[in-house]
């Protein structure tokens, strides 16, 4: 939290992107979170990713639920559409919005409480249906707004600030997402923007349900010794399986890597995700292998990060429902509400 607004002044060399905006234009209001909150780093990564993707801010809809994480949608993309839903209900509101207007880019922001406790059913069903969205979980393992009780993603055996041990098993959102058919699954760390920014860019350009579980330390309630979601713990146990570079359709591919070390995965929109494998035996396009690899590593106490699974040919809910391409808000009343005669026809057809 801070009292003065971030000064409008910017570095004289600040660049504009292809759509004419500087990175600062993608900022939102000043954060009211605790100083040093990992969530603020994620907001900064979202800002950087959207700037690099040359996204026009009014093309984005950001939706969130309740919690520290869900407050952050106010702190970036101040010129975008936003919706703060009730607790845990972001996925269904987003699904509705997406069905009504598929032309926007959907960014869902949630936390471990919002997605793994009260909203677990919503999370699971959004993944299952393949709603096209970038779903970012800002995961700190505690309920920060209610003073640091363990959340559903806290690891078994982790200590809280007062020294109490967590005896419950954690919910692994990445595992659930993989199992339920999400087509872009990643895990990252708020303290590693070099990894996080390309992952967000990849997720926002993905053609289906993309989820990134971002471990985001709570400096106030979960950054002590004994915590498994502290800055120090994650830095010590972080095992990145891959580094990705996001290459937009129009940009030239200039970097060269040794053969075999790199996999270029073309996306539906022509962009390319270039994966540099850090673990030679890891195949991010094999869902089953990804799950077992992750479990094996988790058993050794490692926190596996990077792009864990990707289906480049992903389809989404619109495909399976065979909906019309045109956003509803551009159709006009006549088309949207053709009158009782049309309704009678439909009813007759169902008799």
């Amino acid at each position, binding site marked *: 939290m*801070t*009292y*003065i607004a*971030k*000064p409008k*002044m910017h570095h004289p060399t*600040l660049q504009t992107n292809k759509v004419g905006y500087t990175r600062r234009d993608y900022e939102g209001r000043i954060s009211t979170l605790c100083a040093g909150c990992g969530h*603020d780093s994620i907001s*900064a990564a979202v800002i950087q990713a959207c700037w690099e993707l040359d996204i026009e801010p009014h093309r984005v809809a950001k939706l969130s639920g309740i919690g520290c994480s869900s407050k952050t949608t106010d702190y970036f993309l101040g010129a975008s559409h936003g919706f703060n839903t009730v607790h845990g209900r972001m996925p269904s509101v987003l699904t509705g919005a997406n069905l009504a207007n598929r032309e926007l880019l959907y960014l869902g922001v949630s936390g471990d409480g919002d997605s793994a406790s009260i909203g677990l059913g919503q999370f699971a069903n959004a993944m299952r249906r393949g709603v096209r969205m970038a779903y970012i979980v800002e995961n700190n393992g505690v309920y920060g707004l209610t003073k640091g009780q363990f959340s559903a993603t806290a690891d078994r055996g982790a200590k809280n600030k007062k020294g109490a041990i967590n005896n419950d098993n954690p919910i692994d959102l990445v595992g659930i997402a993989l199992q339920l058919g999400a087509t872009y699954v990643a895990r990252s760390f708020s303290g590693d*923007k070099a990894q996080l920014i390309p992952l967000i860019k990849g997720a926002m350009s993905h053609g289906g349900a993309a989820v990134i579980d971002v471990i985001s330390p709570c400096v106030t309630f979960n950054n002590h010794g004994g915590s498994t979601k502290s800055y120090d713990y994650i830095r010590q146990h972080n095992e990145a399986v891959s580094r990705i570079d996001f290459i937009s359709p129009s940009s030239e591919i200039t970097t060269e890597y040794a053969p075999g070390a790199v996999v270029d995965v073309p996306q539906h929109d022509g962009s390319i995700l270039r994966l540099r494998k850090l673990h030679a035996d890891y195949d991010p396009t094999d869902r089953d292998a990804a799950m077992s690899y992750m479990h094996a590593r988790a058993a050794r106490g490692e926190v596996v990060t990077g792009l864990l699974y990707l289906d480049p040919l992903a389809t989404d809910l619109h495909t399976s429902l065979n909906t019309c391409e045109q956003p509803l808000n551009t159709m006009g009343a006549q088309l949207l509400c053709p009158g009782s005669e049309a309704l009678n026809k439909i009813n007759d057809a169902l008799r």
Partner: protein
Amino acid sequence: MEPTNTANPAYFHKVVDCQWACPAHTPVPEYIRLIGQGRYSDAYMINWVSNVFPGVLGRTCDRPCEPACRRGRVEENNAEKPEPVAICRLKRVAADMKDDVKARMPSISPNNGKRIVCVGAGPASLTVARDLAPLGYEVTVFDGEAKAGGFIRSQIPRFRLPESVVDEETGYILDLGVKFKSGQRVDSMRALLEQGYDAVFVGSGAPRGRDLDVPGRKEAAANIHIGIDWLASVSFGHITSVKERVIVLGGGNTAMDCCRSARRMGGKEVKVIVRSGFEEMKASPWEKEDAQHEGIPILNFHVPKTFEHDNGKLTGMTFEIVRAVYDAKGKRTLVPTGEPDVLVPCDEVLVAVGQENAFPWIERDCGIEFDKWGLPVLGEGTFQSTLHNVFFGGDAAYGPKNIITAVAHGHEAAVSIDRLLTGEDVSRRPVPMTNLMSQKMGIHEWIYRNAVSNDVRFKVPWTKAETALANIKIEVELGFDAATAFKEASRCLNCDVQTVFNRATCIECDACVDICPMDCITFTGNGDESELRTRLKAPSTNPTQDLYVSDELKTGRVMVKDEDMCLHCGLCAERCPTGAWDMQKFLLNTTQAGARCRDAHFPVAHDSAAEAV
């Protein structure tokens, strides 16, 4: 890079660009804050201690601080026309709006039996007198004129500097028990030395204006004047009018004072004609602007060739037209363009093409050596001549400069004299007094106002042109009112409030990196400075500004802060969860003559730091 040694006073001093650039190292942000708080007398006294003539300098200073001001850099691509804080004019606000400060003047110690004489009563001599008289020295000041001030009084026109200001500020010094021998020009150094003074300070300025020896100079002499002599005559009321068509030769501030004075004394067609290009003129940009504002054209690339006359009556001047040609090393030569010479008709010419030092009164065999340019040979930083108890300062030391430089020389010479007369080594210099204090009051409360103003520089109101031009004694600039002064003071970025980094408590959460509006902070692997500068979050475009580098952090990276564009807004510290960043006010005061400049007050180990400052 090695971790930055912030214990060296030079490091944080350099971050305070204005103070670093000021020859007298006046703590600029410190007094600007006081002006913002309406504490004008306090602001005045900070100035008075450091630069002795705040009211004079607030109107006439060459302001080396302003081109250095960080505000002028950070407004680049943020404001339409990037401009520094109006430091000089804020100083004037402190001088104009202060209460009576007589009671704040230093008390005078009992006479210590040592006698010091100053030659000339200009800014350098008066500074020596101001520094030494309160310590108990008996200081005598000789000057050929009736009143003290030297160049300040004789050559700065009244429309820029009212005489009352000069009277007031020279008065504060003479009131410290200084013996002022007015109207007594010293014409023999030998005779002066024979009077048995313990130390002699020569602050006699650079009193000779250069002449221009081209055909016609002798014949038309009646209507050709040397600029500084003419200004002095105007100042003392010996000259009260000029003819209608006047040419001023030269491109320095003296030329600007000449042309603007001539404009007020009956000159209808006043022109400044200069050899060099307009941009290369020595005059300060604002003085050129002021002249042009008063309808005075400046003709550049004109080299004077002859004075034209009709039986001794000046009728005009001819000029050769040149252009500037630069060789591979960037050295300029003026080459004739081949165009026909130009005749500019005129009735009177003022020659302001430079000044020279002249010491006809110093016998060459009395032990004071001079170099091939006729300047005294002096110890670096001590201002001590080859005769151990004779010191030089101001324009007399290194040729014509400006008031603030003369003041800085005076302070150093006073330290030298004080050390000499207390039996200490003059070449050993005292370290500055520094203080670093946290500004934290609460979670988001600082002792200083950290919100950054987006205002652009405020203009100083002027007297209407027709009123100003009608009377040479009417001051052109009116000074800021209190409300505008507050707003202008708010533009100051508080560069003396330093961002101090504590590596031990940093958890590398990136909060400072994310919040910094200017992208000053980077966490990255260490490297050579030149290589490191290529890897910063915002491009490092100004290698004259330092990088603040920490020791290695837990992840093996280092914190690098490019000081260049920092707004000192304190957001890095507000967003830091562990207090690894703190905003700490750095105050540096140069050590002046007195107990603190003596060996007992600064241990030997600090010498290297002092040299770096």
